[in-house]
């Protein structure tokens, strides 16, 4: 059985030109494939370039070398098959929750009269049916993430790219959001590339956990399959024996990188 590859990064390299003319290599030769319907989490220490990798898959950044293929076609420009959930607040502050969700359809030319009821349905399915007329600043951080999720999903993208989407939320809200994400994902199993620094979150959500080394020139240094049964409940799965075994195994690798990343960032701070 061959499932099509949704996202393929082939030896993708990310480099930036610094202000003083030197070239900073963020990611070195990243090789990663996400199959259709697969949920892949990328975990790595702070500053290892996992978000840049995501931006490359989105087409927001061009790789310095290597290639990006989306459904076996080289990516040119923005990735039109992907929905992107940002870490920071990305909602349009001047639109109500309902308009923020319906805009995804209206851009494609769906008449507003048709887009609004569908947006309302999506708001209801992320649990915000009663908040349609609120503006983003009137919503809590978790509620804003829900709106953002609905905004992305209403367009029915084939690929979901998520950049520490629940990073700014408190621990309980993160778990609730994680479960919501899994529920929605279960409905049609899109390919997901999920960046996080939280290993527990990664194992609880994903089919595969990919570990990156500390930057600069970070590489992918590990790839684990998570065979915990689905559908999962994030609260429950954390108590599972297999979860703990896997966590211990991955953490033994990740720990060194985290310490390295930490040491580098303190050195850099001292150098400045």
């Amino acid at each position: 059985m061959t499932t099509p590859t949704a996202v393929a990064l082939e030896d993708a390299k990310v480099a930036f030109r610094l202000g003083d003319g030197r070239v900073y290599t963020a990611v070195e030769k990243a090789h990663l494939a996400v199959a259709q319907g697969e949920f892949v989490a990328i975990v790595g220490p702070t500053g290892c370039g996992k978000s840049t990798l995501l931006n490359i898959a989105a087409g927001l950044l061009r790789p310095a070398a290597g290639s990006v293929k989306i459904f076996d076609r080289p990516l040119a420009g923005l990735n039109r098959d992907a929905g992107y959930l940002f870490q920071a607040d990305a909602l349009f502050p001047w639109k109500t929750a309902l308009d923020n969700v319906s805009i995804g359809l209206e851009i494609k030319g769906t008449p507003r009269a048709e887009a609004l009821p569908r947006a309302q349905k999506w708001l209801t399915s992320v649990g915000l049916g009663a908040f349609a007329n609120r503006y983003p600043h009137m919503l809590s951080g978790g509620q804003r993430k829900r709106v953002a999720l609905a905004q992305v999903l209403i367009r029915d993208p084939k690929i979901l790219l998520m950049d520490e989407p629940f990073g700014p939320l408190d621990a309980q809200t993160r778990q609730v959001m994680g479960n919501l994400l899994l529920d929605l994902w279960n409905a049609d199993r899109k390919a997901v590339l999920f960046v996080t620094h939280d290993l527990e979150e990664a194992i609880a959500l994903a089919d595969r956990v990919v570990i990156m080394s500390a930057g600069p020139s970070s590489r992918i240094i590990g790839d684990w399959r998570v065979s915990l049964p689905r559908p999962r409940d994030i609260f429950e799965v954390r108590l599972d024996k297999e979860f703990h075994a896997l966590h211990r195994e991955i953490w033994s690798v990740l720990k060194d990188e985290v310490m390295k990343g930490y040491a580098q960032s303190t050195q850099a701070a001292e150098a400045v």
Partner: protein
Amino acid sequence: MSRPTLLALQVLVAVVCIVLWQVLSTVPVFGKILLPPFFFSNPFDVFSQIVKWFASGVIWKHLGITLAESILAFVIGSLGGVLVGFWFARQPLVAAVFDPYVKMVNALPRVVLAPIFALWLGLGIWSKVALGVTLVFFIVFFNVYQGVKEVSRTVLDNGRMLGMSERQLMQHVYWPSALSWMFSSLHTSVGFAVVGAVVGEYLGSAAGLGYLIQQAEGVFDVAGVFAGMFVLSAFVILIDYGVTLVERRLLVWRPTVDGRG
């Protein structure tokens, strides 16, 4: 502090000032009147002057003219500011080329332009409108420019990832952002529209509040000058209140300053 108490205290300030003014300008202190009527008039005369203006109806014509000039200055200045601000923000090269000239014109005290405008556009309302436009334009221009420049990177990327074309980004991202900056300076720009109108009238005209004050001054009618000033202040407060109402309607999506909804 409760609203009625606050209001009572505010009224109290006015009452104390007016009573002091009346007393000091009519009752001698140690054989000397501290506020000579020739220079300071007195509240009673000023008030009767205002009543006379309103009773005879002359004031309405002047108010109407000043209002018309202010509105025209505001509308034309804002329109120009929005268009040019947008253009400059989207075309960095144009902005860079014109930058020194924009700074030069903006640094110029606008009053010196009044005689030129009077020469070019005559003594009617248009020379006053032009003066107001030069004031309003720059406030709106700088704000719109800033608004377009400072659109959040994430919001912009989000728009792109949602599939917005350049035109749609303009409509759904740049435009609302620029407008919100413009509206946040609404009080200032409306205020400057009135300043432009009144200063223009003061320097040469045949009607308007500025003309009224200038006429009174020309014949040493201090009561008339003060009366004109009070009518003008009331006029500005009323306009400002109107702006507040508009603002509340347009900026519902913005968090209030203290962070509550």
